[in-house]
C-alpha cells in the first residue's frame, strides 16, 4: 500500500485558494501547528476554516487569522483572539473575516454527521435563540428541536499523539477534541503526528481514528512549550 508519510509542504500542496479546511483542537490544544505553519507559508487565501475556536494570536488557527488567509470562520468561540473581532469589523475588504458562530455541541455533531453519512440531526440546543434563525423546527414527542445539517470539508488538519504508518491515530489527554470527527468528514486528511510508529504497534483496542481516513502523515509535531 502507498506510503503516506511526507513533508508538511507536500501534505498541504493541494490546498488551494478558496478551500474548506477543518482544523482540530480546542484553544490550540490538539491543533497541528506544523500543518498550520505550512499553510501560512503556502499563503493560500480565502479559506473557509472550521474549528472549535480561533485559537489565540500566534497559536493554532490564530496564525491563519493574523495572516489574513481566512475568509469565513465557522467556530463556537472566538473571544480569546481579539484579532477576530478586529477583522470582522474592518473596512479593508481584503482583510475582512466572516465569522459564523455555532454552539459547540452542534458543531461537533454536524461534523460527526458529515462523516457518518447522516443528513442532519435534531438538537434542542439553540431553540428560541438567534441560532434558530432560518432553521427548521421539528417537534418530536412534544419537544422542539432544530434540524441541523452536516458539515464536510475539502481538507482536515488533525493532530495525532501517536500515529502508525497506516494512519491509525491516538490522542493524548484533551488533544482529542474535534480531531476524530474531522478525520471522517474531510476529503483529504493530514495528520501532524508527535510520534510515528510501525503499523500494528498500537493496540487495536486503543486506536481512535482509523488509518482509512488518513491521506498524509507528517512527523515532527511537538507538544506546545509553556
Amino acid at each position, binding site marked *: 500500500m502507498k506510503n503516506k508519510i511526507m513533508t508538511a509542504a507536500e501534505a498541504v500542496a493541494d490546498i488551494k485558494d478558496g478551500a474548506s479546511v477543518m482544523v482540530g483542537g*480546542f484553544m490550540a490544544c490538539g491543533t497541528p501547528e506544523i500543518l498550520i505553519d505550512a499553510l501560512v507559508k503556502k499563503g493560500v487565501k480565502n479559506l473557509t476554516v472550521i474549528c472549535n475556536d480561533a485559537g489565540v494570536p500566534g497559536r493554532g488557527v490564530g496564525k491563519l487569522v493574523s495572516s489574513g488567509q481566512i475568509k469565513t470562520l465557522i467556530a463556537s468561540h472566538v*473571544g480569546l483572539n481579539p484579532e477576530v*473581532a478586529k477583522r470582522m469589523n474592518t473596512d479593508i475588504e481584503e482583510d475582512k473575516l466572516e465569522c459564523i458562530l455555532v454552539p*459547540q455541541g452542534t458543531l461537533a455533531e454536524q461534523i460527526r454527521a458529515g462523516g457518518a453519512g447522516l443528513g442532519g440531526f435534531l438538537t434542542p440546543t439553540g431553540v428560541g435563540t438567534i441560532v434558530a434563525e432560518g432553521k427548521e423546527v421539528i417537534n418530536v414527542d412534544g419537544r422542539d428541536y432544530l434540524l441541523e445539517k452536516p458539515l464536510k470539508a475539502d481538507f482536515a488538519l488533525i493532530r495525532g499523539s501517536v500515529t502508525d504508518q497506516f494512519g491509525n491515530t491516538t490522542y493524548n489527554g484533551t488533544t482529542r477534541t*474535534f480531531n*476524530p470527527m474531522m478525520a471522517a468528514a474531510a476529503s483529504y486528511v493530514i495528520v501532524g503526528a508527535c510520534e510515528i510508529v510501525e503499523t500494528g504497534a498500537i493496540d487495536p483496542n486503543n486506536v481512535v481514528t482509523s488509518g482509512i481516513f488518513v491521506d498524509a502523515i507528517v512527523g515532527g509535531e511537538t507538544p506546545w512549550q509553556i
Partner: protein
Amino acid sequence: MADIKEIIAARVAKELKDGDVVNLGIGLPTMVANFLPEGVNIILQSENGMMGMGAAAEKGSEDVDIVNAGAQYVTVNPGAMFFDSATSFGIIRGGHVDATILGALEVDQHGNLSNWIVPGKMVPGMGGAMDLVVGAKKVIIAMQHTQKGAHKILKECRLPYTAIGVVDMIITEMGVMEITSEGIVLTEINEGYTIEEVQTATEAELIINPDLKQS
C-alpha cells in the same frame, strides 16, 4: 468578611451532592470546587473532553496535553477519562451532567438566560454554554446580584438568549432564588440584606418564600 465571590461559591457548593457530575464555568463557578462540604466528592466534566478533572496543575509539572475549557493546565483524578467533543456534548446534551454552574449577563423570571453576546460590543461566541444549559439536569446561575447597580435579574431578558426556560436557581451575594412557573421565589436571604434591598436590586418581582431562610 469573606470575598463576595467566595460567599457565592460557598453557597453554590451546598447544592451539590456526593457523586454529582458537574460542569463549572470559567471564573467564579470554578471556585465552587474549593468549598465542597466534607464527604462530598463531585466529578468534574470539562467540555473540551474530560471526565474527572482535577485541580489546576502546579507550575513546572504541567502536562501540556491536558487543559480545561479555559485552556489552563489541569490535572486529572483517578478514574478520569478523555473523549472527543461529540462524545463530550453527547454527555452534556443527554442529561448526564447533574449540574452546570455558570455566570449570566441577564436572567429573567421565566428562566430565560442571556450570557453570550452583547450585540455590537462583545461577540465571543456561545462556546459550549447553549448546550450546557439545555442539557444539564440543574442550571445554577452564580453571579453578583447586579452589574454595578444595574439590574441583571429581569422581568424579560433584553440581550439575545443563550436558551429559554432553562435556569433553575440563581445564587448571588444577596441570597438564593428559585425559578418556578409562578416566577422567581426568594428562598434564602443573606445576613446583612433586607427583603426590600434584594427586591430593589431585582427588576423581576420576587415571590417571598414563607419559609424564607436567613443565612
